[in-house]
């Protein structure tokens, strides 16, 4: 029986509060194989780890059991400490007596016996632990960024600056993302294009950055360090090399279609670039509205194009490349407020969402930068902004606060005053949230210098009357009904996750929360990492965010990726499956269920009655195996076992945990 040491942590009062530590230490002494039991207030601290290391050397321990917080929290810490004391890190076992015991059972009488049985199970498992070595995997020195908005661009530039190759895959014909649709950005009101376009150009020209626009990721296989990705480069029907971006084609093109970039408020040609400063400045042909593709006629763009760059025969192209790290920067959408019938969105041209109103400010936008009513083209006198449309709404919308609406509404109210001096803005709000640097000051200026009326309350009904819209709301502070004959209504619709986010997330093996935002590994300590090693997230795809937070997350994700790419070898998974080939009957059921195709048949020779017998058995490639264990259950005779969670260990844990004493 290996010599086992048990160490129990008080965790201040987190554990000691409801678990009788001394009783647990006493009980641990008579577990089978335990020769040393100790406790300390903060085992994970420097001092705590030294106690363990000293005990390993002095007591000549070959197994260690620590009764502390969740293994997901400090298993790595204690394994490192054990390794420093010369004990193979995988000979240490953690009993989770905090999250799974002291924190969830208030009464000492219940928590202590449970902690003891969890410790007994850990000791039983530790006794059967074996010394393991994690395989060393090589790392492809190239990163993949999915999403070409400000988050993707910033992350890609940081990675490129660190000297690594990086590909940006962007679904739209140009990078730029949501930020390209903005006119000004809060709180400094600097023009969005002026700060974004240089970054886009820098990304286009950076030797290490490769733009794959109008492309989508089709398939991701492999694992951290060796992601094999298939990218579909959709056919643009324009030769990117020849095209000079002169614009003659989209000037002369006769057929039009609603512009996605302008949120449908304006039209674009069938051959188009989404916006003026598009990078790359190479148009794409939209098959659904192009006369040539629909009826085989026209072909004006082909005739008019000086460098003859149009190529109707261009086909979609699948690119296969290997990457070491992946950053998801897929951005967000805005809620469609038609679910709020009382606001009448979609039934009147002068009721817009925040993003649509933002497009009106843009010089190359649907109204050329002039703020006019879309119904009759006259400048609006009274504009009503309604906050929290779909946000903070448990019943019909999203339960969370979208974080950016209070600020962009204040910004739009200020811009409105500058463009239409005699316009009056009203903002129906529940709470104005201005928690960023310089945010509160900016919002107060909007209220004080730009005469924006902030009404604490909500709107019950909006209905058209003659040439204006009657907005009926309440000012809950004064308790009075408010009725405004508004010329325009702007709904600050919630920021929501992309509708296809779960599928895109599953491509790279990460899951999303109930709102379809990607799940970070830890909300506070690992905000840009995910549970899948090598896959990082940045920006609004993780939760609604403003530009400063998005950019800082992008750089954070970039640093995580760089940290990964800078390693020449990566530590793989130590707890992998292993076949006892003498007993393997070669049915290969394990191979059928292995999600990572880490198991393959191999021919072996066996002595049999004097002669030799050739037969097929299974073999595990430890570099590919991730240790899920599905093969061990598909195998009927248990000849394929999982190191670290072996059949013997789990049975021992069950036996130990069921002992009621």
């Amino acid at each position, binding site marked *: 029986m290996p010599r086992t040491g048990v160490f129990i942590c008080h965790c201040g009062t987190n554990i000691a509060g409801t678990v009788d530590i001394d009783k647990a230490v006493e009980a641990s002494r008579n577990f089978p194989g335990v020769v040393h039991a100790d406790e300390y207030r903060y085992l994970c601290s420097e001092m705590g780890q030294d106690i363990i290391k000293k005990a390993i050397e002095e007591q000549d321990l070959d197994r260690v059991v620590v009764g502390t917080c969740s293994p997901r929290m400090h298993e790595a810490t204690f394994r490192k400490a054990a390794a420093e004391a010369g004990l193979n890190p995988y000979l240490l076992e953690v009993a989770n007596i905090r999250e799974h015991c002291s924190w969830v059972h208030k009464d000492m009488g219940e928590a202590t016996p449970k902690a003891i049985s969890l410790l007994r199970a850990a000791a039983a498992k530790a006794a059967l632990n074996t010394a393991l070595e994690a395989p060393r995997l090589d790392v492809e020195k190239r990163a993949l960024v999915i999403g070409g908005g400000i988050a993707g661009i910033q992350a890609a530039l940081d990675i490129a600056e660190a000297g690594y190759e990086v590909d940006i895959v962007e679904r739209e014909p140009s990078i730029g993302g949501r930020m390209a649709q903005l006119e000004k950005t809060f709180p400094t009101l600097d023009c969005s294009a002026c700060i974004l376009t240089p970054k886009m150009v820098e990304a286009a020209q950076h030797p290490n950055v490769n733009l794959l626009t109008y492309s989508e990721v089709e398939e991701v296989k492999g694992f951290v360090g060796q992601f094999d990705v298939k990218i579909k480069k959709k056919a643009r029907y324009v030769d990117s090399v020849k095209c000079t971006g002169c614009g003659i084609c989209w000037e002369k093109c006769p057929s039009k279609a609603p512009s996605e970039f302008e949120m449908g408020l304006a039209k674009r040609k069938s051959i188009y670039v989404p916006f003026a400063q598009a990078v790359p400045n190479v148009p794409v042909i939209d098959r659904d509205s192009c006369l040539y593709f629909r009826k085989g006629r026209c072909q004006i763009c082909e005739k008019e194009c000086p460098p003859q760059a149009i190529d109707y025969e261009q086909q979609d192209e699948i690119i296969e490349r290997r990457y070491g790290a992946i950053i998801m920067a897929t951005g967000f959408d805005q809620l469609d407020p038609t679910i709020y019938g009382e606001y009448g969105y979609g039934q009147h041209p002068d009721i817009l969402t925040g993003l649509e109103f933002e497009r009106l400010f843009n010089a190359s936008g649907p109204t050329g930068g002039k703020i006019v009513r879309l119904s009759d083209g006259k400048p609006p006198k009274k504009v009503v902004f309604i906050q929290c449309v779909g946000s903070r709404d448990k019943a019909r919308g999203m339960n969370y606060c979208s974080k950016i609406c209070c600020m962009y509404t204040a910004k739009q109210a200020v811009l409105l005053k500058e463009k239409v001096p005699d316009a009056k803005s009203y903002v129906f709000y529940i709470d104005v949230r201005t928690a960023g640097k310089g945010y509160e000051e900016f919002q107060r200026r909007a209220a004080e210098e730009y005469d924006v009326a902030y009404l604490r309350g909500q709107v019950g009904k909006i209905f058209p009357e003659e040439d204006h819209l009657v907005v009926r709301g309440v000012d809950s502070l004064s308790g009075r009904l408010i009725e405004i004959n508004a010329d325009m209504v702007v709904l600050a619709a919630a920021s929501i996750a992309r509708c296809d986010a779960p599928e895109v997330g599953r491509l790279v093996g990460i899951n999303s929360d109930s709102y379809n935002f990607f799940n970070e590994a830890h909300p506070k300590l690992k905000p840009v990492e995910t549970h899948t090693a090598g896959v990082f997230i940045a920006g609004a795809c993780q939760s609604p965010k403003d530009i400063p937070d998005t950019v800082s997350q992008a750089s954070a994700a970039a640093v995580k990726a760089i940290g990964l790419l800078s390693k020449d070898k990566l530590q793989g998974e130590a707890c992998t499956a292993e076949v006892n080939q003498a007993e393997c009957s070669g*049915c290969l059921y394990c191979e059928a269920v292995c999600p990572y195709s880490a198991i393959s048949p191999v021919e072996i020779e066996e002595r049999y009655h004097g002669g030799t017998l050739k037969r097929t058995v299974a073999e595990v490639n430890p570099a590919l195996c991730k240790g899920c264990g599905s093969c061990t259950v598909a195998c009927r005779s248990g000849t394929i076992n999982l190191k670290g969670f072996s059949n013997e260990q789990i049975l021992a844990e069950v036996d130990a945990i069921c002992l009621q004493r």
Partner: protein
Amino acid sequence: MAEHNLEQIEKIREAVKQDLLGGRIDLLLGWEKGHYWWQSRPLFAQSEEDLEKLAWDSFCAVNLSRYLLEELKEHNKVGVLVKGCDARAFNRLLQDNMVPRDRVILYGLPCPGMLDYDRLAAEAGSVLLSITEENGQVVLITAEGEAKADRDEMLLDKCRGCIYPDPAVYDQMLLPPQGEKESPERFKKVEELEAMSAQERFAYWEKELSRCLRCYACRQACPYCSCRECFVEQENPRWQGRAYQPSENFMFHLIRAYHGAGRCIDCGECERSCPVGISLQELNRKLIKDINELYGDYEAGLDAELEPPLLTYRPDDPAAFSEK
């Protein structure tokens, strides 16, 4: 031995003789009469006079495919006579990579359904000397005289529920096929047990499994039990005790049945070979019924290309537990 049996045996012998003597196979697995007239036991024929002992009658219930596992170790090419269930057993072994298809020649024998001696003896009432068969009737010849019985009544349990008497895979078909049969009562017993309360069901199985001697005859006869070392005999880890004791018996039979989930060909050999007559087939049939109901009809062994249901999945599979 009925005359038509003699003709059939002659036909079979002719077919296999050319292959055996011609060297295409160096062993033939067939049946020969056993110690009693109502026993037909496996025949390992390697020469012409071995073939003289060849027998084909209504008692050839033993599943010959199972013997391939051992015989293929010593013999290069083996011929085997396969009824409907034996052929499906062969497909089962093929799917488990236990038998190389190119070293086996299958002689298909559509099966009329094998008779149950205990039922014949019970029907005869006194010492049964022999039987003859004509057009669906069995003539029971005893010391006191003769009695008639409907052949279908005298079938083995496993043959009464048989749907596929014709071999699903063969190299040569030696006798005319019979066509698929209806088996309305296949899951009758399962449904009866399902209708009981948990307590009653437990009492039923407790009584049944308490008789289990752990002789593992069921495992030895079963085409899906092809592990080199069965989990019950393993010491490290010690999955299972050796004593025949209530909880151990439950563990063995539940796990053995589970190992057959989506793999059991419902041939009934386990029940037939069980010395204490435990209704083992009902455990397997319960799994077959549930898997058909949950994940689509699947008849193990009919088509070796079809993947066993528990080795694959569909993202929108139903579950037998709440998924809310």
